[in-house]
């Protein structure tokens, strides 16, 4: 691993995004718009908004980062720049960490903005510290970045890449506990949800919003989310090949 290469890649990725202000605006605003929409949808059932509002603060950023990174990485593969980089003194993990770092820094901004609106304007309540919600939102976005980098290996076109969002993320949303409590699902589905990262994202956000104590289970969730992000990056690096057919 090499910090120079990772930093150079992170700066380059952010430079590319900077040239695309509309994407940045979408990344930062779409979660806000969706959160506002949730507030309006449950305007007369504030209890429901209070229950799902916080978990969605984490799930929206995860989804948008997943999409953006999987497309960006796919472009790197198809434009020939990846082939060129593979002939240069740069490690595969350096590249992916650079991507992860670049997008994660944007994810922090995204998490802060959507949380500010949710707490400041939409009157979302949390029992725990608000900074923990922001941190979890950013962590989830980072996880989305890592998963997006990984799955982009399996797409050869952008049409395929966008399909991975419903394919990888929708089932996780259905199973994470947001729609139905996990312990009331069929046993097989509950077991399946145990190995899906979004389950822990949901669990962590619910813990912060409900009882608010930063206890052991929450720490475990965070460790699992970090682990899942690192695993996805590692798997992503393993799918990058210096030599191709």
């Amino acid at each position, binding site marked *: 691993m090499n910090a*120079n*290469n990772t930093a*150079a*890649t992170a*700066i*380059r990725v952010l*430079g*590319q995004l900077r*040239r*695309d202000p509309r994407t940045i605006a979408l990344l930062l605003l779409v979660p806000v718009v969706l959160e506002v929409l949730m507030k309006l949808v449950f305007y007369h059932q504030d209890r429901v908004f209070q229950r799902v509002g916080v978990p969605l603060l984490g799930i929206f950023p995860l989804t948008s980062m997943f999409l953006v990174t999987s497309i960006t990485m796919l472009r790197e593969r198809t*434009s*020939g*720049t990846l*082939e*060129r*980089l*593979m*002939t*240069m*003194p*740069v490690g595969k993990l350096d590249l992916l960490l650079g991507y992860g770092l670049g997008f994660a820094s944007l994810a922090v901004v995204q998490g802060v903005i959507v949380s500010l609106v949710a707490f400041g304007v939409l009157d979302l309540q949390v029992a725990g510290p608000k900074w923990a919600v922001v941190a979890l939102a950013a962590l989830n976005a980072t996880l989305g970045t890592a998963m997006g980098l990984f799955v982009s290996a399996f797409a050869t076109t952008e049409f395929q890449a966008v399909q991975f969002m419903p394919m990888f993320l929708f089932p996780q949303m259905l199973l994470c506990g947001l729609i139905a409590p996990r312990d009331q699902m069929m046993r097989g589905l509950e077991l399946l949800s145990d190995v899906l990262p979004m389950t822990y994202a949901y669990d962590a956000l619910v813990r912060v919003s409900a009882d608010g104590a930063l206890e052991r289970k929450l720490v475990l969730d965070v460790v699992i989310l970090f682990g899942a992000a690192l695993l996805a990056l590692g798997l992503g690096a393993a799918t990058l090949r*210096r*030599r*191709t*057919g």
Partner: protein
Amino acid sequence: MTDAAIVVSNLRVVRGGAVVLPGLSLEIARGRVTGLLGPSGCGKTTLMRAIVGVQIVAGGTISVLGEPAGSRQLRSRVGYVTQAPSVYGDLTVRENLGYFGRILRAGPGAVDRAIETVGLAGFGDRRVGNLSGGQLARVSLATALLNEPEVLVLDEPTVGLDPVLRRDLWKTFRVLASGGATLLVSSHVMDEAERCDELVLMREGRALATGTPAELLQRTGAPSIEGAFLSLIDSAAEATR
């Protein structure tokens, strides 16, 4: 021959189930400009990819500067310019070169020198995506010049460029070679042959002939490299008959 920078022996490459290089052997002389000429689809790009270590090979060996092709030590000593320009369209010329320069540990001033060399002075702050095809190809070429590699593998670097610019780039290649660099330059147009020190004429994954342009003309008695190419194909066909 101790003078070879690249030694390819019995190289076999299969792509998409088809044999592209059935067993290629050749040597590329150090410090010279070698032209890799042959029709589209004959395997030039595949050979170059194998030399820079990004092609899966089915057999044979390639050594570059005495190391196996694709080994880690070669990654800063060998520069490669892909056939399709591989640069970031959403970044400026300078940002592109700055990024690759950091990866290649290029020295200060390298970016400006490379921009100057490929004739893009004044275009440094232009977005690469808004450049013409020829300008794009030159940004891609400039990338490989950043760290002054000992071996430069250039896949059709002058295709589609304005004649004046082509002449200038060939001058640049010559300057690099006289500074000790080894250049392997592919082309599917035969009129670039005369600018090379050495030629490899390639067809259907095989090297038909190698030598200096003068040697090839003399050997075949043809008036041009294109003629030499045709006569070599004819005599190869006769030999197999």
